[in-house]
């Protein structure tokens, strides 16, 4: 190549550096397995849903004060990432804003010999956001399906019967999520059913917060994200099931009562029945304090009966 001869002296440090990185990577991987007992702390790896990442971090922080010998390490990346980590055996708990698919359960069983164990830790109402100056106040599921779905017919704001003055081109900019996001899968299913796909050409962002951030800066945009991410630059739409039926604002009450149409469970999965510190941690998640954090983070806590049921189940696993 034209510049290889000249730059060969430059490549030398680069090559050495690459080797160094490879070596250190190999070493650190060995270390990781030993870290827990050496430092005297038990590490619980909690990986998954971006929607739940703030909540999981809150849990982990508060829990560390209660149980200083346990360190819960939280990372996001999407529900798919969490499940992949669970299947590969690198996560103790996978957070998931959608249910595990049959195929994934089978693969987990094949890979690790254990069945995934499912818990529901709370609910999330998925809010549809528009810019704060957008005159639109409510929409129904069918309209949203026409906006987001493959072959859908709505791509102008005027088609929704409004004059979005801030958006001169009148074009609806659809903001969506990357395809490993649980939010993406849930929203698609809620709007379009099992079979239909989203329309291409949406802006696919990489985090729940990014969606709200971008919609807040873009008068033409519409986007979906957890209701906990609302800011004063955006407006939450009221959502109805069909044209003519009443539309509801996403709140704790409407999500619990089921009148808000796009609310979904937040799952936590472990490999096999949770035991030891993982079980203790999960029991705490279902305690009053754990559930209060769910509410503080903008999600919907479990109803008393469901909470009791989950706790009873965890108690029995311990025996």
């Amino acid at each position, binding site marked *: 190549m034209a510049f290889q001869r000249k730059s060969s002296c430059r490549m030398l440090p680069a090559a050495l550096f690459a080797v160094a990185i490879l070596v250190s990577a190999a070493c650190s991987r060995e270390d990781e397995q030993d870290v827990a007992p050496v430092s005297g702390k038990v590490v619980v790896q909690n990986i998954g849903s971006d929607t739940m990442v703030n909540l999981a971090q809150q849990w982990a922080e508060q829990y560390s004060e209660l149980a200083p010998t346990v360190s819960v390490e939280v990372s996001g990346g999407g529900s798919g990432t969490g499940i992949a980590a669970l299947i590969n055996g690198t996560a103790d708990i996978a957070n998931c804003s959608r249910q595990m698919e049959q195929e994934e359960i089978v693969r987990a069983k094949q890979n690790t010999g254990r069945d995934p164990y499912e818990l529901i830790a709370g609910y999330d109402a998925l809010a549809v956001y528009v810019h704060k100056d957008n005159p639109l106040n409510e929409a129904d599921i069918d309209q949203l399906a026409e906006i987001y779905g493959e072959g859908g017919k709505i791509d102008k704001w005027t088609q929704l019967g409004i004059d979005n003055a801030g958006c001169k081109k009148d074009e609806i900019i659809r903001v969506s999520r990357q395809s490993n996001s649980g939010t993406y899968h849930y929203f698609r299913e809620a709007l379009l059913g099992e079979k239909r796909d989203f329309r291409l050409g949406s*802006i696919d962002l990489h985090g729940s917060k990014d969606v709200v951030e971008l919609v807040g*800066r873009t008068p033409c945009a519409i986007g979906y994200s957890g209701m906990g991410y609302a800011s004063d630059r955006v407006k939450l739409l009221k959502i109805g099931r069909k044209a003519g039926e009443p539309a509801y604002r996403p709140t704790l009450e409407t999500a619990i009562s089921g009148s808000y149409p796009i609310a979904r469970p937040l799952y936590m999965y472990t490999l096999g029945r949770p035991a030891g510190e993982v079980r203790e941690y999960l029991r705490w998640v279902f305690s009053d304090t754990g559930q209060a954090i769910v509410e503080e983070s903008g999600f919907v806590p479990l109803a008393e009966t469901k909470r009791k049921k989950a706790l009873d189940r965890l108690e029995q696993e311990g025996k």
Partner: protein
Amino acid sequence: MFISEHLIELLIRLCGISAIVFVFGIFFFVFREGSDFLFHKLNIVEFFTSPEWYPTSVSHKRYGALALIAGTFSVTALAMLIAVPFGLGAAIFISEFCGPKLKETLKIVIELLAAIPSVVWGFIGLTLMNELIIELFDAPIGLTVLNGGAILALMSVPVIVSIGEDALKAVPDSYREAAEALGATRWQMTYKVLLPAAKNGLLAAVLLGVARSIGETMAVLMATGHSVRIPHSLLEPVRTLTATIAAELGEAPVHSDHYQVLFLIGVLLFTITFVVNLTADLIVKGVGRQ
């Protein structure tokens, strides 16, 4: 003494060869991960001609990469359109026209430009440039080819400047003295003597800039809007090949079709860079013979 000399020579030789080993090793690994799908399942016509990228569809999975290829090319082309004149111009100015004090300042500032992490560039694109483009062009959204291209241009200018300046500096002073002795002005000397003499190095500078643009991931992921479509204007969002790999590889189950297609995109990127380099090599040799 004699032994240590041999040892050092051997070590340096190993380092030199290691570059080749790394390149082939990477290509082999990337190709192996995707090869099964390439030979047995891939619909090549669909891959290159369909813009429909639905890797996680429940009912009908489609792997059309045309929109992604168009995205990478449009952003890279725009970036080069901006960066090449600016980069080469700056290299010529720094090497031939400016005084020693200004030269030092400029070099430090330009190197600083190269030190900004791509995530920071992406963030600037996502926030600042997005609003600026909406304001200036009345665009419905600012995450566009223009946004990504401008940011990539800013990122590749430092590469082009520093390599280009090295190339000009490598032209022997006797050339300059000879040109001055013949009564050439500074500008005549630059474009009649220095540019032809340094053309290989300058081409290398441009190519490294191109490679930087094609390979850049994080900044374009954030600044282009990451939207699967074939752009018809500079004010439309796009999605690039690299950003697609970055966004989707983490999710794709190992050895699934989706995972293998992403590795094939890696092979495609590898091939594109290889072809760019090879063509440049041939051009340089062809020009040299005349």
